């Protein structure tokens, strides 16, 4: 193992040791304030981000991890996400008191998991990453047992994630059975025409489809979104899904083209049902977290529209969409988290009536995020849709494009509904006094939304030069 490997492993090491450090800080006799812990966490994450910039790309560590621009970009995204989550949870009224070193270290560990998963070239690595990613989430969801629904959500997620993991694992082993190697590339080379590799990939797909809340593996997502504290929801609504998507793309589009080709009709169907199910479920939903859950189901559908195109544009579209998707959801949930009340999140839409006027900055941010989700220019959401539909059209899937378009139109309905409630004049003065928002939250929200706009106006920044 030479130096370059070490440099490239830097971020992972930093994250791993960082997590342990934070834990360690907790058991020091001297009491360390939550702020300090959070500061340390953020510093660690920033260090990690810096470390990624030192990567020598493209590079591969003997069939285990691959370092290219793709993985770098998304590792950085996950770090950013983690930073935002930390800030949010720091000011999140409910977790504020409960938030100790464990919580922060868990965030660091899931980030590590994502990083591994994103840049893994080997199924074992992927599996380990997946578990490191998801196991902390169980804990985070149920972090506040006294919270309503917390435990239920945690258990559901644990069980179902377990099942998904089992599928993923079984897929892994079958792939191994097929090719005698766990390296994706090797799997790609030794594709015999038997059903085995296909079945293996399918099982992997099930495993990842669960994490993505792809219909028909989507049932869990609304419940868990609702149960988890808003920052945690933000976490696995945004970056986790992005990470999984990237691995999916790496697996299908970069290594197993033949399987991809063969899978196209299936992806076509999955896209359609995901879009329709997601949008219809979201249409009249009154609980904002569930609504966003459903909307993200629909978005996975749009991403699959891109994947179903089966061309390079489709691949790039999917990558871009994953990024945009993560940012948009992060933005939306950041606002939800920022507006949470002590003891509970604001659940129903009515709880948000008129808040856009009380907190103009949050209001505008919410507007930007939601309009981006709705796919209006000049946001990243628009370019994402443009690329996705474009790839579909290029592949000649006019029907699919039209279906996607119709779904977009349906989706507008509920996004606008949220916004109107957000900006409607409040019926009568509600009890709570308008607390001034913490700077950190505002900064993070603004940063995210400026990313959304910036990537919408200059998509060049990331669309060029993917493998």
């Amino acid at each position: 193992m030479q130096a370059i490997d070490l440099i490239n492993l830097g971020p992972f090491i930093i994250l791993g040791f960082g997590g342990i450090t934070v834990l360690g800080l907790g058991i020091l006799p001297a009491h360390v304030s939550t702020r300090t812990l959070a500061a340390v966490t953020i510093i660690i994450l920033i260090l990690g981000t810096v470390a990624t910039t030192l990567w020598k790309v493209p590079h591969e560590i003997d069939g285990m991890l691959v370092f290219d621009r793709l993985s770098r970009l998304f590792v950085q995204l996950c770090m950013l996400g983690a930073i935002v989550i930390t800030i949010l949870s720091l000011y999140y009224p409910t977790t504020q008191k409960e938030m100790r070193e464990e919580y922060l270290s868990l965030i660091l560990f899931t980030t590590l998991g994502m990083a591994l998963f994103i840049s893994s070239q080997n199924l074992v690595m992927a599996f380990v990453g997946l578990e490191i990613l998801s196991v902390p989430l169980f804990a985070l969801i149920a972090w506040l047992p006294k919270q309503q629904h917390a435990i239920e959500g945690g258990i559901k997620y644990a069980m179902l994630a377990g099942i998904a993991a089992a599928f993923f694992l079984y897929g892994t082993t079958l792939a191994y059975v097929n090719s005698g190697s766990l390296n994706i590339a090797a799997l790609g080379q030794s594709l015999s025409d038997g059903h085995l590799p296909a079945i293996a990939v399918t099982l992997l797909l099930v495993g990842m489809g669960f994490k993505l809340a792809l219909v028909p593996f989507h049932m869990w997502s609304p419940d868990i979104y609702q149960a988890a504290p808003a920052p945690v929801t933000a976490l696995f609504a945004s970056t986790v899904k992005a990470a999984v998507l990237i691995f999916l793309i790496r697996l299908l589009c970069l290594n197993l083209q033949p399987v991809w080709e063969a899978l196209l009709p299936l992806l076509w169907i999955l896209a359609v049902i995901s879009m329709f199910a997601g949008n219809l479920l979201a249409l009249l939903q009154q609980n904002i977290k569930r609504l966003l859950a459903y909307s993200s189901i629909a978005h996975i559908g749009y991403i699959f529209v891109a994947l179903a195109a089966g061309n390079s544009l489709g691949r790039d579209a999917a990558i871009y969409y994953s990024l945009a998707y993560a940012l948009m959801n992060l933005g939306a949930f950041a606002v939800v988290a920022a507006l949470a009340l002590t003891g509970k999140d604001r659940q129903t839409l009515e709880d948000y009536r008129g808040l856009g006027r009380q907190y103009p900055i949050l209001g505008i941010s919410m507007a930007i995020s939601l309009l981006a989700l709705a796919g209006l220019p000049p946001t990243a959401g628009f370019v994402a849709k443009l690329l996705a539909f474009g790839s579909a059209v290029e592949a000649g899937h006019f029907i699919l494009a039209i279906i996607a378009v119709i779904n977009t139109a349906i989706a507008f309905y509920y996004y606008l509904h949220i916004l109107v409630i957000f900006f409607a004049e409040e019926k009568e003065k509600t009890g709570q006094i308008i607390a001034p928002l913490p700077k950190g939250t505002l900064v993070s929200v603004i940063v995210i939304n400026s990313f959304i706009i910036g990537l919408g106006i200059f998509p060049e920044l990331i669309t060029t030069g993917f493998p």
Partner: protein
Amino acid sequence: MNQLLWLIPGAPILGALIIVLLGGFLRYRHVAVLASCAAAAAFLTVLLAWLNGASNTQPLQQTVYTWMAVGDWRPTVGLMLDRLSLVMVSVVSGVGFLIHLYSIAFMAKDNDFRRYYFFLNLFLGGMLLLVLADNLLLLYLGWELVGLCSFALIGFWYRDPVRASAGRKAFITTRIGDLLLALGIFLLFSQFNTLSLPVLFDAISEQWQSNSQLAAITAFMIFAGAIGKSAQIPLQVWLPDAMAGPSPVSALIHAATMVTAGVYLIARMHPLFELTPLVQWTVAAIGAVTVLYGASSALAQNDLKRVLAYSTISQIGYMFLALGCGAYAFALFHLVTHAFFKSLLFLTAGAIIQANNDEHDIHRLGSHGGHSLLMHGCFLVGAASLAGIPVITAGFYSKEAILTAVWPASTGQLLWVIAALGAFLTSIYIFRTYFLLFHNSQKADSTSPTINGLMAWPLYILAILSITAGFVEFPAGWSGPRLWSTWLENEFSAAKHPPLATVYVLQLIASLLPLLGVGIAFLLARREKAGYRIPLSDFLRDGWKFDATYKIVLVGGYFKLAHFFKLIESLLIDAMLHKMTRGYKVFATYCRTGFEYGVLNRGLNGLLSGLRFGHAQLSTAQNGLLNRYALMICTGAVFLLGYWLW
């Protein structure tokens, strides 16, 4: 002079503009004087035009500016003053000016004088534009403009909904004619790709041979437009109601000028009409029928102004008759004399009505109303001229000219008889009115109102004109000047007339008839006054009982006929209009309720509820049961695996 041409329509329009812009700051006197000056300016320019335009046969022309430029088609705002339009502008601006003067005193009490003078000036401008336009587009502009002003002035006292509706009725009825006119214009445009009149006439004369179908259709459409404006059957319904407006307005718009725009239009387009004898004959026929219709209806009226309205209808019928027989010059001749005596009548009537605080009923006016000698005289002159009392009145000469010109036309004899009959009726109804008004034995002596000077002068002038205007053109076969026809001869081919022998016979009859009519009217009036307290049917019976002479029977018959016509109008035509409007509304309502809500919105809601249904179905699946979720995952997996086996 060419450069001054724009002043003729321009001056009144400027006046209107000033009034609407500065009206707020001006008192009544200033506004009135301003408006009159504008009219005077126009009139003076016309006189100027006479001075150096009358002599040469070349028309004066001025292009004010290019209105619009579409590709190579550039309709201009261009004015053309040939002799035809010279006649028209003289009448319009002259009478217009007089009526402005008259209005100064007449409208003195009204608060809305600004609106009044604005529209009066605007009307004058529009009318002058109409007759001066050198292309059909500009002519159409003037055409609509005068229609608008008539609408606004009929409904001048808009707070009375009946009057407001009268204005609307007038506007919409004429708009139907205008629609056909516009279509005719489109047709010409699509054929020749120009609307400039001189060019158009050349094109027509060389490209369309006579009896060509296109020519017929176009001519008919333009004729329809004329019918609407000039209140000929079947579009005449609006004119009687139009009397809701102030009397000067009725005099100017609904007697002298606007209603004769149709006549001008046909005279202007005569090259087109001469191509299609059929349409020409239709013009004559419609004219004849209208003559009869108007005259007989007038016979039964009790409202002074309605009498005059119906008589206007019938008089314009004469002009159409002349046009139809190709006697364009005589049509114009009658147009001029009619303008004089009819506006004289209207103004006098207006004076009388105003003097007797808005009493319109001739019987009551006769019995209780007071009037000055001047009114009496003027009305008499006007009536005489309208009735065409031989030799001494202008009306006689113009009517004679028309009658003689009618005879040689196709089915001329029949038309001539109708026309003569019309003349006969005319003298009856007008003198009936006259006698009822002024020769009332049991008149309650009331203070006879006087007319102030400003109102009197126009009356004098018009009275003189309606006597003397006729002497410019002596009937065929008489020794005397024929200035009119000679002066217009290079505009229109001279009208034919039958051999002199016939002419003299016809003229004898035609000139005896009015005198006869006066006698009848006198008797009739006496009868009416006698039979005033009893209902009309009884009175008829009385007529029958009294003297069973040939004439009386005739009179009774005429009454029946007159009532029949009244009936026709009130029942058939008005009712039909009502029906049409109602049906139209019903249909529209159906569109709203049936289609708009029924189909479109319901379809939309159906879509929404469909989505909502889908939402409900899927949403029930989200029942929060762990095992269900697991099961779902398994089925998903099976489905995915199934894809490979399939």
